[in-house]
């Protein structure tokens, strides 16, 4: 009888030990994902969802926030930013679903909204959703995002569709080459989202320090030109992040960036997340679109 009791005690102890161990493991936290819908007060981190059109950004957004942002199988469906929140581990996150864009050299209004947010909204983490079946084309955007920020997680989505087309992607090799975390997912069926959350929280909290790949520009004189411009921009606009990228855009003759520098409102493009609420960005971008 006594023996039996001891046995039960032992079992209990080991169970609680196991629980203590679990609490520190990311897989345990993932099970504790709380979808907060539009309730996103007092967030600790802002996460942006970027990616080429029709790679499933809104599907990832819905899966994490529990919202029902309209999804549809056609490129260009999301034209405004949608925002929602979720709770993961000990932190609250605000998630921003951006319109799809092929590049950050924006031409249309929806692309501009996406670009302005990644560039000037300064999200804590930028998740680039990538179509595994069309990796090469999607990487063009990834490489451009890596120019701007190193707090990036790649969500390698639609791996089931790639498999149907007999394409398999080595996510570890990709992660090594890009220098940022890569998480394979099938967002439509909620697969891989726990790992994605873990990666997001590690980048947000600074546990993962990324050393992102930078495109090798083989052009002579370029480095010299960029560094000269960077120091001038830093002097005139001390609050602007990503000066290297701005310098490259100026050298490339990007009209919008040139205009912003001329008018001196390059600094004002540095939106704080607070004043991004509502239609702020949309109307600003829109009016400039019609002015042109």
């Amino acid at each position, binding site marked *: 009888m006594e023996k039996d009791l001891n046995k039960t005690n032992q079992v209990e102890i080991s169970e609680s030990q196991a629980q203590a161990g679990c609490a520190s493991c990311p897989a345990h936290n993932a099970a504790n994902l709380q979808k907060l819908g539009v309730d996103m007060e007092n967030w600790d981190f802002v996460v942006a969802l970027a990616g080429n*059109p*029709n790679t499933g950004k809104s599907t990832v957004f819905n899966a994490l926030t529990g919202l*029902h942002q*309209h999804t*549809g*199988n*056609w*490129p*260009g469906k999301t*034209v*405004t930013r949608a925002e929602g929140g979720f709770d993961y581990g000990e932190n609250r996150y605000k998630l921003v679903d951006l*319109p799809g864009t092929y590049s950050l050299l924006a031409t*249309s209004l*929806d692309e501009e909204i996406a670009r302005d947010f990644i560039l000037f909204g300064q999200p804590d983490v930028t998740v680039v959703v990538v179509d595994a*079946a069309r*990796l*090469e*084309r999607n*990487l*063009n955007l990834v490489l*451009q995002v890596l120019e701007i920020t190193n707090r990036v997680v790649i969500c390698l989505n639609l791996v089931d*569709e790639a498999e149907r*087309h*007999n*394409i*398999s*992607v*080595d*996510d570890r*090799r*990709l992660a090594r*080459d890009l220098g940022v975390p890569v998480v394979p997912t099938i967002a*439509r069926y909620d697969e891989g989202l726990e790992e994605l959350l873990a990666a997001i929280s590690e980048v947000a909290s600074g546990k993962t320090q990324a050393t992102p*790949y930078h*495109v090798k*520009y*083989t*052009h002579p*004189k*370029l480095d010299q*030109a960029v560094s*000269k*411009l960077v120091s*001038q921009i830093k002097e*005139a606009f001390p609050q602007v992040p990503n000066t290297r990228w701005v*310098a*490259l855009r*100026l*050298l*490339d*003759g990007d009209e919008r960036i*040139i205009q912003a*520098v*001329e*008018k*001196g409102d390059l600094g004002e493009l540095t939106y704080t997340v607070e004043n991004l609420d509502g239609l702020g960005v949309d*109307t600003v971008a*829109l009016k400039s*679109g*019609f002015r042109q």
Partner: protein
Amino acid sequence: MNSSYEKIIKSARDLRWDIGGDFHEKIMESLYTDASRIADRAVTHPGDTPRFDLDRTIDRLVTSRIWGFPLMVLLLTAVFWLTISGANVPSGLLYSLLIDTVHPFLKSIFATLGIPWWIDGVLLDGAYLATAWVVAVMLPPMAIFFPLFTLLEDFGYLPRVAFNLDHIFRKAGAHGKQALSMTMGFGCNAAGVISTRIIDSPRERLIAIITNNFALCNGRWPTQILIATIFIGALAPAHLSGLISALAVVSIALLGVLLTFVVSWALSRTVLKGEVSTFNLELPPYRPPRILQTLYTSVIDRTLVVLWRAVIFALPAGVVLWVSANLLINGVSIAEYLVNFLNPFGLLLGLNGVILVAYIVAIPANEIVIPTILMLTVMVSGVTGVGEGSGVMFELESGLQTLELLTRGGWTLLTGINLMLFSLVHNPCSTTIYTIYKETGSIKWTTVASLLPVVMGIVIVFFTAQIWRLFTG
């Protein structure tokens, strides 16, 4: 201008010159080279591609020059036929529950409590009946139409529609992506106007915004379906009437598409001249739709949201109608004054005063046009024995009864056809007008987008009426 800003621009210009003209190409080249190298290392293609590529086979069919268009019309007809024939039974059930059972029950409670007749009238015969009518008539078709449409969207059919229509839009001097914003407009014009943001050129975007109203929205589908059922379906043998009604509705929708082309063409030749811009349209892979999720989201997010909007507008409209039908000046109600005043103009257009008053009442929401018309018809034509008395929005038990009532109110086949035409071509609803203003930021273009369709609608029904009368004597 700040001198340090100028300095930056100037040194950027100098450096650009110094680097040489192929700078942009070099940057893009480096980007593409690196992307392709990294992708090559990560991607493996084991084995060869499958011999039969289902996606490509479907694409060849639905975007073929010969079959693309007929298949589109066929799909659209099938969707409406399912909607029309499927919505009848649940509509009838909802009607008998909300109006035959609950309404008398509430009336008897009010009577027992001794509540004054006018409070009873405003609340039960005005607000409650208007709302109940809108729910009974709109909920079933929407609950069938939206899931079907969303399934097509989820499957990946919409970009193929855009692909098929692209060359027509380009010939009309508009942007090919307008096909997508137009398709969104079939759901809701306000949503369609917002979706024009995918068009980058302001000129082509304005064309898309102004013409979006010609995409028949879900506030107008029920009107089209009902009038088609009672005026056109009734002419056909019983077993074909559902199909014929569906075809009539599809014709109106296609006429809307045609008007979109014509107006886009006219605008791009006159006030909005300019080059057509080119774009890449990516045809996404077909994806098996997730049936249950689609049902859930389209019922909860689309159907209930649209229904809620209709209810919000029907409630006060019911009150206004009841009051205007019961407030008498010299023994004649306000509503009757208005109807009689507009009647000569209405008849000239092949419509009547009742329809014009209904459209004024329904500016906030097109959904309540039909109930308003029926109520006013009863009042003006003095038909007795139907409905609950003056100022009550009611539903009739069958299409035939509605037909009888409308015929006694002086309606002909021409009135029915012209009502369908005018319902397609008139001013956008207030929500859409507000959205147009927000998107363009211009009062001028908002006015153009609001007034152009009304004027066109009046011209179209006027000429239809004249030609009709010429041939039928």
